[in-house]
């Protein structure tokens, strides 16, 4: 079942979008083949480079193949908040397929690759497979659930809990697309970017990382984040993966 023209970091060489979808429902062999055979155009990005620019009217949407990207909102005085964090498999701007324009930019956090596919090809795909329409709707709803959860974290959780939750979520989302290594994962994010995700100062972000380390919950060296005590971390974060909808069922 290799067939895919898409290079992929996960060991099985399966298109990460297929892995992401199959965690929500089974795909037929025809559906899998149709996704693999879409006219994917792979592009590489350096950190800070835009995958999609605000106010663009994209005629294509992209799926993350590897690396990390984010949606960032900035204020006039330079304060930044990362609102969404994308990992392999995420259909970054599927919403533009229907919204027709994008209201804020998507920027690479690390070196990354994304597969772009025209809206024309997507239209043909979902007209042929209405089931895939429902699945694309499902993953858009999962994105919304992730956002709701993140609003709660930003609004009502303290720094250490927020950070613990972020690591738990990253671990589960990367596991979905086969990118965890044992109890760890590659997390090539510097502390200023991490603080923009958490909505915290660099100082408090740094202290929170130190605290998780001191409690023996994580280690983080050379971009490898290792969760030493999953139960402890999940308990501190009150992490419940329900909102990620990782159980396949007919949709």
């Amino acid at each position, binding site marked *: 079942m290799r067939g895919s023209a898409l290079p992929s970091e996960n060991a099985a060489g399966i298109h990460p979008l297929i892995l992401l979808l199959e965690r929500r429902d089974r795909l037929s062999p025809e559906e899998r083949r149709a996704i693999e055979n879409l006219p994917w155009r792979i592009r590489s990005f350096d950190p800070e480079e835009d995958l999609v620019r605000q106010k663009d009217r994209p005629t294509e949407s992209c799926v993350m193949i590897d690396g990390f990207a984010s949606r960032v909102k900035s204020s006039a005085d330079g304060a930044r908040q990362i609102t969404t964090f994308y990992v392999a498999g995420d259909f970054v701007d599927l919403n533009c397929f229907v919204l027709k324009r994008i209201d804020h930019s998507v920027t690479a956090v690390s070196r990354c690759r994304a597969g772009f596919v025209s809206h024309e090809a997507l239209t043909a795909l979902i007209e042929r497979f209405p089931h895939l329409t429902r699945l694309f709707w499902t993953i858009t709803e999962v994105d919304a659930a992730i956002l709701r959860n993140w609003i709660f974290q930003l609004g009502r959780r*303290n*720094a250490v809990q927020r950070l613990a939750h972020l690591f738990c979520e990253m671990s589960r989302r990367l596991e979905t697309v086969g990118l965890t290594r044992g109890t760890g994962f590659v997390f090539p994010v510097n*502390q200023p970017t991490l603080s923009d995700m958490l909505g*915290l*100062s*660099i*100082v408090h972000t*740094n*202290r929170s990382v*130190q605290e998780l380390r001191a409690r023996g919950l994580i280690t983080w060296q050379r971009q490898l984040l290792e969760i030493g005590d999953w139960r402890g971390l999940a308990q501190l974060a009150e992490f419940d993966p329900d909102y990620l909808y990782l159980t396949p069922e007919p949709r």
Partner: protein
Amino acid sequence: MPRYYFHVRNGQVRDDREGVDLEDDQEAWHQATLACGEMLRDLAGSLPADVEWRMSGTDAEGRTLFEIHVQAERLRTTARTKEG
């Protein structure tokens, strides 16, 4: 970029062992003021009375550059009635 350390005392000592690389003293001060607000918020309404909360910022040589104190005092404590 020089490294700065931000130590917090709040009844107990929580020393900053790693520090953070920042542009200059001004940025260190700016970061400290942001972090103080966030840390007080993290106390989630349970700032203890009569305990001083303090952050001190030092440079890599251990020289103290600034201190931020929050002094919380309760001047009247009314016992709550059962119904209250």
